[in-house]
């Protein structure tokens, strides 16, 4: 095992004691992280739990901590307006995701083709993300203004029968939100896909070209499949944006006409802060949380697992 050279008698040596400084330096990282962590933890999970309790309480205009079980949830599911909000979320979410991803991917692929003005075009496609949803909503509200907006332009260009009253049409209004939402976010999707495309190893593409594959073929069979991780993370971010849509709806339609464009987020706000139905609002918020968690938690879990 050990063939040491001649071992001299080990002299007793003085021990360096574990000083205060040493102990402090061991604890320092934990001390430093603790306040932020506690704060965030409380803010996230503590308040979540509190909200959960509110949703099980009889609160109306003011918090009332009387426990009433799932009554608020029952009221929620019986509410016409809530169902409208859910339906709208489905419509909006589906269209927003589809068009956002499609346009974003298309733009990314096109921009990847060695365009001279790539930088300028990228800036143009992406600038909407820098704007507040309120600004976006206000602008689009004007553009889609029935009478003075898009409709008028179309009339003056000759399409006199063109009618665009979607903004005030209860059945169509939700689609205006889709238009504005896609306008705002497609550039973001493009940026993500572009980064993903740029990350693909060049040699794979060269091999495919030598193998004789045409450009569309290469895209369809090799590039797009290798963008799967980007698809997932983009899907996740867009879904979570869609579920949280509040600002855009408020600015564009204020949930109207009536509550035709209500979404869970605006529903929650209206109930909690202008209708004096705190318990109901809390219940709707909890449902929103559950939906987001159902999507995000598995994703986060798999991401962090993969990192280990």
């Amino acid at each position: 095992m050990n063939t040491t050279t001649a071992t001299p008698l080990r002299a007793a040596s003085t021990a360096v004691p574990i000083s205060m400084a040493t102990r402090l330096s061991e604890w320092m990282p934990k001390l430093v992280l603790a306040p932020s962590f506690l704060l965030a933890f409380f803010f996230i999970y503590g308040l979540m739990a509190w909200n959960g309790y509110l949703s099980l309480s009889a609160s109306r205009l003011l918090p009332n901590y009387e426990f009433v079980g799932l009554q608020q949830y029952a009221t929620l599911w019986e509410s016409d307006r809530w169902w409208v909000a859910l339906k709208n979320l489905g419509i909006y979410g589906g269209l927003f995701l589809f068009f956002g991803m499609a346009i974003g991917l298309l733009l990314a692929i096109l921009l990847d083709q060695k365009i001279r003005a790539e930088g300028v075009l990228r800036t143009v496609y992406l600038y909407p993300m820098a704007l507040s949803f309120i600004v976006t909503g206000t602008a689009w509200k004007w553009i889609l203004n029935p009478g003075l907006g898009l409709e008028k332009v179309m009339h003056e260009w000759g399409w006199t029968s063109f009618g665009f009253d979607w903004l005030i049409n209860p059945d169509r209004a939700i689609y205006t939100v889709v238009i504005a939402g896609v306008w705002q976010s497609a550039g973001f999707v493009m940026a993500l896909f572009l980064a993903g495309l740029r990350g693909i190893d060049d040699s794979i593409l060269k091999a495919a070209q030598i193998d004789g594959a045409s450009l569309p073929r290469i895209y369809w069979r090799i590039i797009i499949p290798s963008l799967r991780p980007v698809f997932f993370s983009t899907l996740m971010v867009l879904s979570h944006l869609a579920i949280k849509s509040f600002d855009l709806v408020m600015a564009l339609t204020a949930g109207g006409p009536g509550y035709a464009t209500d979404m869970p987020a605006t529903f929650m706000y209206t109930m909690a802060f202008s209708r004096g139905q705190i318990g109901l609002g809390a219940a709707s918020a909890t449902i929103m949380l559950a939906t987001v968690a159902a999507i995000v938690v598995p994703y986060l879990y798999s991401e962090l697992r993969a990192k280990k």
Partner: protein
Amino acid sequence: MNTAVTPNRLDWHRLALWSVLLVFAAFFLLPMYVMLTTSLKDMAQIRDGNLLSLPTAPSFAAWDKAWSHACTGIDCGGLKPFFMNSVLMVIPAVLISTLLGAINGYVLSKWRFKGSELMFALMLFGVFMPMQVVLLPMSQILGWMGIASSVWGLVLVHVVAGLPSTTLFFRNYYVGLPDELVKAAMLDGAGFWRIFWRIVLPLSTPITVVTLIWQFTNIWNDFLYGIVFSGAGSKPVTVGLNNLANTTSSVKEYNVDMAAAMIAGLPTLFVYIVAGKYFVRGLTAGAVKG
């Protein structure tokens, strides 16, 4: 990506490519164009002309009104007070959340301890959580703390809400800094804080810029917290804009609405144009968890 097409030949592919790109560019630029031109017109021209026509006699009258006289509910003082509120709120919120994020990221990447990864994962959920779920309890707390109607209430909320994101950015960046750098500094006798100030922070310029821009954009553009957590005298510019554009006053003045929208949007737009590269980095860093 390398394609085999030589750029000089005029071929139909390139033409089609460019047409699509330009059509989309027009689509994206349209609202900005409309906002700008409408804000420079007077109401007569707006009614007679159409959305896309250029202003015949451009004037900043609408801008002036939006800034100082427009009605935002009961008050008719324009966007100015709201703009100022936003400024007062954004600066401390951005600086504090960025600094705390840097320190947290530093701890989580270079001073890992048992449970720190779990703590990080738990914090991470905060990036995605729908804020609706904390609105009610938070307004209660701010009320108890006595800051519900002041700018500080908003600052606190934005700092706490922004911590998970800023921590994520810095932590992912610092993970890329070699651990041996910290070890060498430890051997040289530097402790936790000295290593941070003298070595780690000086090397953080790129991510700091990204985080500052990201936080500035998100906090300035926020509406939800602005509307829930502000009192009469602390409403940010987004709330002001929404009020202005939605007041059911006698006549709708679209040019003022557009001018107001431009005023509210210009700060973040300006930052984007100047430092867009960093903004994009923030977007891609935030979404594609590295």
